[in-house]
């Protein structure tokens, strides 16, 4: 406790060096305060993140995802007890959904985690998703980097648990655990196209229920049909989180995967995007050369690494027969922010799939802003998420899109395309 008291004194001073030392020393209060700064995008947090970047890459980042009711939180509780028994220091980042209407959230995972959470070797932080899709909160990656630098042996990230959409975890975690409740039945069909594919370890929790046998068999069958990643055969395990049965074997599997796949995977992903300024002028050029964007009076606002922001004022031509903004107009804005961002890498990116949810009606005169974020990218496929917000900050639509990265360079320089 005395250490923590010192830490509070430390972060009261705007002295980055002192705070760095406190975080590296694993001081609870200093870590917690730095997470708040990152989560709220406070300017000083950027310097801190940058300074800590070199320390990251030591911790084993374990993502835990799965459909609601699978028992993720109870399983994490049991994992914490097992990790503690093996003398490891663990941080948990648990993400809960924010209301799309009010932005409020109840971070209730504590309800199930508090037994293990009381241990000194455990640090638990809940984050609200704040409208971020993919089952994670926007700042999750930077927070994981911070906890990594703070010296935790493992960092467990629990996703929102909304099901298929929680694939964002694969880009962040070294090891992805997908938790399934027994008796998924038809649901296995439904989710296997989504989150099951990111699993390094599949867990059938509540393994003492009668349906567990069948579920385990279904998962094994499914794996047989699937192409394996070289070097690692996906493991299927059975646990009863409430009693701890099967949890030691799960930790063994996590350790084996960490040995096999290494740590700090998130740090090695995707080359850094090209410098912003040069890219931005090219992207502005794309927009200026886009007749459909002009038709809809879209405006390019700014771009950054993996992100593009565009704006549209809802005019009479955007309305539907109900007098509200047409969904197609909102889609056009989101799709443009997505398409422009995906084309920042010098090759033609072709959209192959999108999904949009409309959450709030939009009226004439509203100014809509679409901001795209790159969720993941490899040589062939990139995934983007776009939030469309109204002037008051309300998220009115959420969009996800996937592009295929062709090898074709853009045929002409944008300047040449200008009318």
């Amino acid at each position: 406790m005395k250490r923590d008291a010192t830490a509070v004194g430390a972060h009261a001073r705007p002295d980055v060096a002192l705070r760095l030392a406190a975080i590296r020393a694993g001081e609870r209060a200093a870590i917690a305060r730095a997470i708040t700064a990152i989560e709220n995008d406070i300017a000083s947090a950027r310097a801190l993140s940058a300074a800590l970047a070199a320390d990251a890459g030591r911790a084993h980042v374990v993502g835990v995802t799965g459909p609601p009711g699978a028992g993720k939180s109870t399983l994490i509780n049991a994992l914490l007890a097992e990790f503690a028994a093996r003398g490891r220091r663990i941080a948990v980042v648990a993400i809960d959904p924010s209301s799309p209407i009010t932005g409020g959230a109840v971070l209730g995972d504590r309800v199930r985690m508090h037994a293990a959470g009381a241990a000194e070797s455990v640090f638990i932080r809940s984050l609200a998703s704040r409208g971020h899709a993919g089952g994670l909160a926007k700042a999750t990656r930077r927070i994981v980097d911070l906890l990594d630098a703070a010296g935790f042996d493992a960092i467990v990230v629990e996703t929102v648990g909304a099901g298929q959409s929680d694939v964002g975890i694969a880009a962040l975690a070294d090891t992805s655990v997908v938790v399934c409740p027994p008796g998924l039945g038809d649901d296995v069909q439904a989710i296997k196209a989504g989150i099951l594919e990111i699993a390094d370890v599949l867990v059938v929790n509540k393994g003492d229920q009668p349906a567990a046998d069948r579920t385990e068999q279904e998962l094994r069958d499914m794996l047989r049909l699937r192409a394996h990643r070289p070097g690692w055969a996906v493991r299927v395990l059975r646990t009863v989180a409430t009693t701890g049965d099967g949890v030691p074997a799960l930790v063994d599997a996590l350790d084996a995967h960490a040995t096999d796949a290494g740590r700090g995977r998130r740090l090695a992903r995707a080359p850094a995007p090209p410098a912003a300024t040069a890219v931005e002028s090219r992207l502005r050029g794309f927009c200026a050369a886009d007749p459909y964007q002009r038709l809809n009076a879209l405006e390019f606002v700014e771009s950054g690494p993996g992100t593009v922001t565009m704006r549209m004022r809802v005019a009479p031509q955007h309305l539907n027969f109900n007098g509200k903004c047409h969904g197609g107009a909102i889609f056009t804005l989101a799709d443009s922010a997505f398409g422009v961002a995906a084309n920042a890498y010098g090759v033609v990116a072709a959209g192959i799939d999108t999904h949009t949810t409309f959450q709030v009606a939009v009226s004439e005169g509203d100014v809509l802003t679409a901001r795209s974020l790159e969720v993941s990218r490899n040589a062939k496929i990139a995934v983007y998420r776009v939030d469309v917000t109204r002037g008051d900050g309300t998220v009115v639509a959420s969009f996800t899109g996937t592009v295929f990265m062709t090898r074709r360079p853009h045929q002409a320089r944008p300047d040449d395309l200008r009318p």
Partner: protein
Amino acid sequence: MNKPLPEPIPASTEEAHVRWAAEYSAQIGADRAVHNRSGIPVRPLYTPLDVDPARFDADVGFPGQPPYTRGIYATMHRGRTWTQRQLIGLGTPAAYNARLTDILGQGGTAVSLIPCNSVFRGYDMDEVDEELLGTCGVVANSADHMATCLAGVDLATTSCAMNDPSPFTLLAFMLATAKRNGVDWRTISGTSNQSDYLSHYVANHMFFRLALPGARRILVDHIRWCNEHVPRWNPLSVVGQHTQQAGATPAESMAFTLAAAVQYADDCVAAGMSPDAFLPRFTFFFDVSISFFEEIAKFRAGRRIWARIARERWGARDPRSWRFKFHAQTSGVDLTRQQPLNNIARVTAQAIAGIFGGLQSLHTDAYDEALSCPTQFGARIAVATQNILREEAHLTDVIDPLGGSYYVEALTNEMEARVLAIMADVEAAGGMYRAVESGLVQRRIGESACRFQERIDRGEQTVVGVNAYQVDEDASARPALPKPDPAEMRAHLGAFTAWKAQRPAQAVAAALDGVARAANDGDANVFAAVVAAAEAGCTHGEICGTLRREVGFGMPLTVV
């Protein structure tokens, strides 16, 4: 000029109704929609058109006969009024005994015992924060403590209500006391008031709870053992009070209570017990709010539904199995901290609703309950309120005096329909046990609680002194929290730890081992082992701790 006079006598009820409706609309203009707390729309007038006279026998009938709408006994309050049961408990066993003697001397006719929150939570007094001991109930941890609590009370003739959640240690301590005093267990009467473990999961998280499967098993053991050994004891009180206090509407509260009772009876039947062996000892415990007519209709509808279920679901033949016996407590949720003396008026209105609803036993809240645990002064007024209603107000001259009221009969029918619809939802979810496990019940209660608070905050529901008719008050006039005498409590604690240390360790260990073995043996009776442990000198905390280890502790299944 005089207006032309209408025809003096309308030709038919229908015509008169149309004429009234026209005049009503013309005078009142845009009528406001009125709904009761259960969400049932309430019309401005009820007439013969709202009830079907052909259904008198099926829906209303006579007291003491199916459908039991008008009461479970032929004589009802004209014959015997109701048990005046004031729930009390504060401080040390000696302080409790002094308070109990005072209440019994003022017209109280039965014992009730509320233990300290530390007891509710399954701990002995040496396991919790000392500041909290005895602030909300009596600190009773052993058979010796119970003997002090009940000194001077004839257990063979006085009905005792124990606020005693699973594993029912207080009853075990009382039985140990009775045996020492030579009282035959077969003469002992009373109720295990907090035996409804499901309600503790969904609503009132005050109690020690075993994990759901363990709690389920021990309740069946308890019912079976009491039926055999203490046949006049009511081992089960199904509690609607918890859900309604937690925010359920009166209709939801009645529905969840009946659904829980159905679950418990199903469990007993599944364990091989005969319905007519245990149903006569089922009792109910409800909150009665200030929504006057709604509460009356709630009780009338509940009585009707239970009698029907008992006959149709389990084929019970004994009329005692059909009777819906209930204790009611005036609702603390309606009481206000502001202008606390106003609460006397609220409690009076609530109590009358309960009486007209046909209750068998009544607790009236003290006016200062929204400020603190009640003071002795507040408790006295609560008792006097009952005495006035019973003996001055002529409320008991006629059985079911509101029976036949167009409004009350129509509302009873509507409440019944609403309650049955909610019960059907629970049944569809697999019964009450599953509906609690899945959080369905908690979610509904949470939503209703928020809706009710929002209505008050928006001023749609007036609460005098809170959102209307506020006055500047002299805060010093409010009573202080009665706290147990710290010196007495410290002495009580000291004596307890000293006694604990000098007990014959082997006998205690053997009895606790008996509890543990019973918990792991499906053929044993856990409650029998608890009684044996109480007699062997085991403490409350030791018995609860043993079961906590053996069958698991139950966390609240809370839903925001």
